[in-house]
């Protein structure tokens, strides 16, 4: 039986929207009884659409938010009672540009947080330069954070979360808004952290990222756990569908509408990138639908750059789960 580093039972969280005078105007249920458990050394992903309850879960687990009901134990301690003991052993990375002191240098940010975590000066003097090296900020550590790119800030966030060498790391959408190179860089850092034995909870919107990094993935939607498995296991749940992927030049609207109207097509998704459109069609009859798509594109004078039949991805599994 693997050792658990975290466990929640029936975790529920409601937000009350109050008027200036404190009157409750509305209630939003962010978590509706979430029960998860994470093993020591595991990289556990939480994926879900906006408002699914991912960040709320991370905030409760990192002692920054109280649950409305239910229990959450982190490293064997209760998040509502053992705040300071838990905080000494966990690290949190929030995604986005906020959360750093922009007007001082990256080095000063790290030294400041080292002090707040009670890291002796003799240790931080050695560890901080190592962290700067690890996240690739060597040579830029004395510049003000406001001069950093978004990717650099995100890497500094990670270094900040590691100043006290925590056992458990919470990464809340660490690659959000980063360019592909920046995201890859962060993913490499996450992999090396996992290899060093840290337990990691990762929330993300990017399915390929979850697929590449996570040992297990919890899919949450509207505050509920809708699926939990290894990435391969989640993909098996959509084995009944195949995908036709076509990349086209030109206005694809007519093609998309025609494919949506096809009886053998269950879903059509499209994504525009630099003048090209990638259309992904879910269907149990891929070869037939592929031919129909080629014909239709030709009818409308749309240039097909590439067309192929693909295995379903984690994204396809995810979309089916959160839409059901």
């Amino acid at each position, binding site marked *: 039986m693997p050792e658990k580093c975290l466990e929640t039972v029936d975790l529920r969280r409601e937000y009350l929207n109050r008027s200036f005078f404190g009157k409750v105007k509305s209630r939003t249920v962010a978590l509706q009884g979430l029960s998860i458990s994470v093993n020591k050394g595991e990289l556990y992903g939480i994926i879900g659409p906006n408002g699914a309850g991912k960040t709320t879960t991370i905030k409760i687990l990192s002692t920054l*938010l109280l649950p409305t009901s239910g229990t959450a134990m982190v490293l064997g301690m209760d998040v509502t009672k053992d705040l300071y003991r838990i905080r000494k052993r966990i690290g*949190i990375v929030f995604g986005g540009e*906020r959360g750093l002191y922009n007007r*001082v240098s990256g080095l*000063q940010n790290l030294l400041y947080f080292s*002090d*707040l*975590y*009670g*890291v002796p000066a003799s240790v931080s003097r050695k560890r901080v330069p190592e962290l700067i090296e690890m996240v690739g900020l060597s040579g830029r550590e004395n510049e003000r954070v406001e001069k950093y790119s978004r990717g650099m800030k995100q890497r500094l966030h990670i270094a900040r979360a590691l100043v006290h060498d925590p056992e458990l790391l919470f990464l809340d959408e660490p690659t959000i808004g980063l360019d592909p190179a920046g995201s890859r860089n962060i993913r490499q850092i996450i992999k090396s952290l996992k290899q060093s034995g840290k337990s990691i909870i990762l929330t993300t919107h990017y399915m390929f990222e979850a697929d590449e990094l996570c040992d297990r993935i919890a899919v949450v939607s509207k505050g509920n756990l809708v699926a939990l498995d290894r990435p391969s296991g989640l993909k098996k749940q959509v084995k009944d569908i195949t995908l036709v992927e076509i990349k086209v030049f030109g206005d694809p609207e007519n093609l998309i509408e025609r494919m949506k109207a096809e009886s053998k097509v269950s879903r059509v998704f499209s994504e525009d990138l630099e003048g090209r459109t990638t259309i992904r069609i879910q269907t149990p009859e891929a070869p037939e639908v592929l031919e129909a798509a080629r014909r239709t594109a030709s009818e409308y004078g749309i240039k097909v750059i590439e067309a192929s039949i693909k295995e379903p991805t984690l994204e396809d599994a995810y979309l089916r789960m959160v839409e059901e």
Partner: protein
Amino acid sequence: MSRLEISRFQVVKASMGLTARNFFVDPQWIIPSIIAPFVFTMVSLFIFSREAGQTSAVLLAAVLGGGMMGMWGTTVYGSGESIGFDRWNGTLECTLSAPSPLIWIIMGRVLWNTMEGSLNGVFILVIGLLWFRVGIGIANMPMFVLSTMVTFLSLSAFGMLLANLIVLSRRGGFITNGIEIPVYIATGTMFPIVALPLYIQGISYALGPTWGIDAIRRSAIAGYNSGLHVSIYFDLLMTVMATILYMALSGYLFVQVEKIAKRNGTLGDY
């Protein structure tokens, strides 16, 4: 890593250092922290110099009051805004996720702000003395130094109480900004509190800096009479008691306020 011991001194020092760095790299803070109280003091001094006929004791009392205004202005703005700054930066949650009790972090910030406010106070004092040619003779220097230090601590403790409001909600900034001028008046920095309506005097007596300012003036000006009819020792005792009360209340409130903010989910608001 569970054996990490949090050193109070380490946290307070780090917090002071960061606040100081942020202050020096952002010159716009100088406007509410230094220029505004300075202008306000100078205007008051002009009024006093005309109305009081430049009586040395009255002008010295006014200059000392001006110095206190500078200290208070910086303390109230700096203490409130340092947490507001964290909210705006998104660092409040990161700060709270550290195992250091918030009160130590805020203590470092408030200490820096009060120290900076004191320098501001001295600056106003020196300019006031030179401009209005008021005699610098301090009647009882040891008591003056003691009174100033005790008042300094009292202001810090008061600033910590105010910082609670900002942790609780971003709306706390309205209150801390709104009480700046009323506290100038209620603590008697410019006008004797005996001149105020009785119900406001009640508030004045509950404010530590009121007694501190009285002690400063009594020690600086021979024969000074604020109308309070108490000795300088009583002034100091009241300042110390108020300071202890504010500190104790702050310590309790920081824990409660953090709980409330976590229950309401307002720590990340900005």
